[in-house]
């Protein structure tokens, strides 16, 4: 009962945060980079609901615009991870045999690598562009997806409807895309929901270290990093971005966990 309540609360909260952030250019009360040096850092007030930073920039506007970027990176990087993971896992699982063994060995090997360090290196070496950022993050997060999809595809390959499809003369590609993969959609959706928060976390981690989103653009991770610098004098600059990030991650994780529970209960042995 409480689980259901918490889930719907999380869903509504997440929908609100997402909508407000995506509509930031129209909703934000001020220009996020408009400075007002005479004003300086002000605590929250009626004019500036969440206060201003030391350049007199409105924190609410910066938070909305930053959230927009955080979410867009979250979605794009998850899409990269989804694409890579599903195609890799589906190919390995469907082809089977030696190809499967080899492809999964690659995944196992990559699991053992210090991937975060490669992302750090990539960002340092090739400049800190947004496209690179989400490709690098997506390239880290696809491994688990590949494992899950492979396990599903392998299980489904044995089922009767695949045999039937083969009997009516469909090609392998048609069987995989039209018949096998749609039947894996449950676990794929669940794991995608759980990938978004970890992607957003990685982006915030990189931005916090100064390797992610660069000024004048800003994301929640970058705002937190700026807030930390002046947290003793102006704690609100840390607290509000931190609350925004944590709340969003909390909602996404709650939803993902709930979806997984439902899936596991509805189809016995269905989830990976």
């Amino acid at each position, binding site marked *: 009962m*409480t689980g259901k309540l918490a889930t719907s609360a999380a869903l509504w909260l997440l929908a609100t945060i997402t909508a407000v952030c995506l509509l930031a250019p129209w909703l934000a009360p001020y220009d996020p980079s408009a400075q007002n040096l005479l004003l300086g850092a002000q605590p929250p007030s009626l004019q500036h609901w969440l206060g201003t930073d030391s350049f007199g920039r409105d924190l609410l506007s910066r938070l909305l615009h930053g959230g927009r970027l955080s979410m867009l990176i979250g979605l794009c990087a998850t899409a990269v991870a989804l694409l890579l993971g599903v195609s890799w896992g589906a190919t390995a699982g469907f082809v089977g045999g030696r190809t499967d063994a080899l492809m999964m060995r690659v995944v196992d*090997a990559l*699991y*053992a*690598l*210090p*991937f*975060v*360090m*490669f992302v*750090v*290196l*990539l960002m*340092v*070496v*090739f400049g800190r562009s947004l496209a690179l950022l989400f490709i690098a993050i997506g390239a880290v997060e696809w491994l688990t997806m590949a494992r899950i999809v492979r396990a599903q595809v392998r299980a489904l390959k044995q089922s009767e409807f695949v045999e039937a499809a083969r009997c009516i003369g469909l090609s392998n590609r048609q069987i995989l895309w039209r018949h096998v993969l749609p039947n894996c959609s449950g676990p794929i959706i669940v794991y995608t929901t759980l990938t978004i*928060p970890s992607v957003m*976390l990685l982006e*915030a*981690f990189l931005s*916090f*270290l*100064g*390797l992610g989103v660069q000024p004048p653009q800003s994301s929640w*991770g970058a705002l*937190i*990093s700026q*807030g*930390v610098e002046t*947290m*003793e004098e102006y*704690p609100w600059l*840390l607290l509000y971005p*931190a609350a925004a*990030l*944590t709340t969003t*991650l*909390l909602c996404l*994780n*709650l939803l993902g*966990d709930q979806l997984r529970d439902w899936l596991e209960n509805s189809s016995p042995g269905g989830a990976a």
Partner: protein
Amino acid sequence: MNSALLRMIAGRLASAALLLLLVAAVTFALIHAAPGGPFASDRAVSAEVEAALNAQYRLDQPLPAQFFAYLGQALQGNFGPSYRYPGRTVSELIIAGLPATLELACYALLLALLIGIVAGSLAARRPGSAADQLSMGLALLGICLPAFVLGPLLVLVFGVYLEWLPVSGWGELAGDKWLPTVTLAAGYCAYIARLTRAGLCQQLSQPYIITARSKGLSELAIIVHHALRGALLPVVAYLGPACAGLIAGSFVVETIFQIPGIGRFYIQAAFNRDYTLIMALTLFFAALIIFFNLLADLVALWLDPRQREALS
């Protein structure tokens, strides 16, 4: 049985060596694809000086030659001089930073294991109870509060407002190890609590637990002596990847608390394009991660007789 174990370890060590070679090659390629060398932009030096510097650090030779020369020296434990800290070798820098990082990681892992296993066990005893909901709620919060948010918040509350604990440093003031340790441990604690709970819930419904109950064992004895052994398998499997996470965590925690460990060195080296230091640290971290994955597998073998049988 013993020879099967030895063969497995030998196989894993061989693939570890291969992986390290791969890591070295990828890192080397990445670093050399970077625009701007270590002596490129700082101050204008004459062409002869730059050539002399490049010759001294072997930057004038073709890349494969540089790579193999580097590998040959690295195998002898010589990772070369640091580009940015003249007069100091990379090995010296790593040895200087290693104790703080290892100490921090060990404390964090121990704290996370202790609190995580206790909280997970309390939660699993009565699923759905207040204790279960409280600890799982806290675990979810712990997963959603990354170190770079939790650390500054702890500093703000316990360091700045309450003035109970020092805000930075490592081993300089009394109690300055608490905040970094808690910051690094929180996320792992949360994961371990969840894994313990899930594993224990599964074990507690097994027939052998009913046998133990009917013998009249206390709840504590059942959990500690019987159920935990099986329930901890997922936790042990998690420790390998957790080691990789602890390293990434040390980047953040050492930066926040200004701890002179190798995590902070890595970030600085990356910004400074200190090639030799980056290479050595990447290899070192990779070796550490591979070693801990192997260790986790061995502990799992020790805990689980079924895996031992499958091996032989």
